[in-house]
């Protein structure tokens, strides 16, 4: 059944692209977890916040307009200008850096040396705070994000893969979303840059040193505060990229923050401490859930996509708790 096979291949490719987006979110988790041992529950909300801010800046929205209107009785909504997408992205990055600084300064600086569970609780608080703060700042309506990325299926690919059907009437060529293709490219570049940064630069080395041993890093004169602000900024940048991709795909709305939950199985698969792990884990989950739905779905009545990732993660927790690429715990006897 060559048509079935071709459909399978299309599902596989689409799964890969969806996986890239999962991987992007998981990447943000890994960065912070590696460098500070904090499991950042707020990563998904950071993506939402970044996307909200980006839309707000692009559309020239007045921040806190609802609050201002309610308190002063005015009626302001927009400044009336539109900002270029690239400039908006840069400005949003600035906001994310300020956010990273505030998070470090007001929350985690006071929690140095605390139990991981306490740090985790702090990130839950942070997630709720940022969710509310984002709403207050930019309003809670669903927004459209258009930074000029191509949308819709790629006709080029569709036309040029049509011959694979060998005249089969049912096959019109592969349908691949252009946005997904762009997202894949951007994610690949992002990962390469991050790996180069952490392996070959002084700050990257310091970041890994901090991840290994806080006390020793302090003792050689590495400033933990600085490294942590840096890591949160990088995670903020990754959140921004993820926010742009997801926002362009399905609009900027509250449910964007829930992608964090999809990143959890990715992390369990790839390992909490591995950047390549986050990528491969994301791809496996993306492809896995699409293929499972395609092959097994019809037999069990569908809707397997909702649970497939979590069951897979559960299996990994039982048989390989450190994930595929997680750091082996070095133990000397």
């Amino acid at each position, binding site marked *: 059944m060559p048509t079935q096979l071709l459909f399978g291949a299309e599902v596989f490719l689409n799964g890969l692209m969806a996986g890239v987006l999962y991987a992007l979110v998981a990447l943000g988790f890994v960065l912070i977890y590696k460098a500070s041992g904090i499991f950042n529950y707020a990563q998904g909300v950071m993506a939402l916040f970044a996307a909200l801010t980006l839309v707000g800046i692009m559309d020239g929205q007045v921040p806190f307009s609802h609050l201002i209107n309610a308190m002063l009785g005015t009626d302001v909504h927009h400044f009336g200008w539109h900002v270029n997408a690239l400039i908006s992205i840069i400005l949003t990055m600035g906001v994310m850096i300020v956010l990273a600084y505030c998070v470090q300064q007001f929350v985690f600086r006071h929690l140095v040396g605390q139990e991981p569970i306490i740090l985790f609780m702090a990130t839950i608080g942070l997630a709720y705070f940022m969710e509310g703060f984002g709403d207050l700042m930019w309003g809670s309506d669903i927004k459209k994000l258009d930074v000029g990325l191509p949308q819709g299926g790629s006709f080029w690919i569709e036309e040029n893969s049509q011959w694979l059907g060998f005249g089969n009437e049912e096959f019109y060529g592969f349908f691949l979303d252009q946005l997904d293709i762009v997202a894949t490219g951007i994610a690949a570049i992002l990962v390469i840059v991050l790996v180069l940064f952490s392996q070959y630069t002084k700050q990257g*080395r310091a970041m*890994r040193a901090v991840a290994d041993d806080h006390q020793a890093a302090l003792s050689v004169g590495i400033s933990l505060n600085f490294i942590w602000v840096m890591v949160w900024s990088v995670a903020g940048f990754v959140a921004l990229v993820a926010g742009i991709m997801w926002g362009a795909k399905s609009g900027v709305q509250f449910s964007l923050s829930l992608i964090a939950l999809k990143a959890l199985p990715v992390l369990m698969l790839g390992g909490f401490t591995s950047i390549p792990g986050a990528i491969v884990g994301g791809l496996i989950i993306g492809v896995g859930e699409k293929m499972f739905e395609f092959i097994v779905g019809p037999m069990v009545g569908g809707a397997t996509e909702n649970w497939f990732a979590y069951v897979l993660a559960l299996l990994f927790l039982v048989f390989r708790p450190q994930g595929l690429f997680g750091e082996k715990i070095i133990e000397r006897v």
Partner: protein
Amino acid sequence: MQMLDAGPTDETLLEVSNIEVIYNHVILVLKGVSLKVPKGGITALLGGNGAGKTTTLKAISNLLHSERGEVTKGNISYRGNRVQDLSPAELVDRGVIQVMEGRHCFEHLTVEENLMTGAYTRKDGKGAVDADLDMVYQYFPRLKERRRSQAGYTSGGEQQMVAIGRAIMSRPETILLDEPSMGLAPQLVEEIFNIVKNLNEQEGTTFLLAEQNTNVALRFAHYGYILESGRVVMDGPAAELRENPDVKEFYLGMSDEGRKSFRDVRSYRRRKRWLS
């Protein structure tokens, strides 16, 4: 007795006067410790478990904060300037670096990357840092062989060398060295201490050394302080301490009168020790 050519000078680099350290706002660990570290010397800080050696070193290098400890009284000055409000990074910048007890290597970094983290605060360019890396490899040839292996997979002795080498990479004037002998075979302890001595003589690095192994420490140090439950109970030139009958008995396990019976041991417990 071993004579060292290079010795301490008259110039006092580090002065700790009457400091008190409290952990968690309640646990009083140091009850007024004072000491002086002369430039170019090896000063030893001796005493048993829980005497306060590590706390003293951490109070100097300002690493107490992350363990919820703080200096509540007294003064720590380096080259005459008060330093206890500085961050560890600023102190490293001024030339004081600590090698922590239990090595604390960055396990997932390679040996060479570990050494390079020591140069984090330096701003004198790649050439100077590379030259120092070569120097460290000269002092520790073993590390050169293992430069590409992850530090977590090297032996205890090698990790201690990495920790000391990493500190040297910051071009320090003073190294605070905490229990270099911990968990190492006697041969390795000797090797490490000889390297410390060489560094002291050839590079002029000043050392403040906390050590439980009194025997080795007093052979290599110039001056010693003995701490007991948070107080300095005795101090003097290393050669004198080695001949002191109390030190011999309590820390070196030697006695003029031979083995004692149980009754004598008990009477020793009642005797007030070292009250000076």
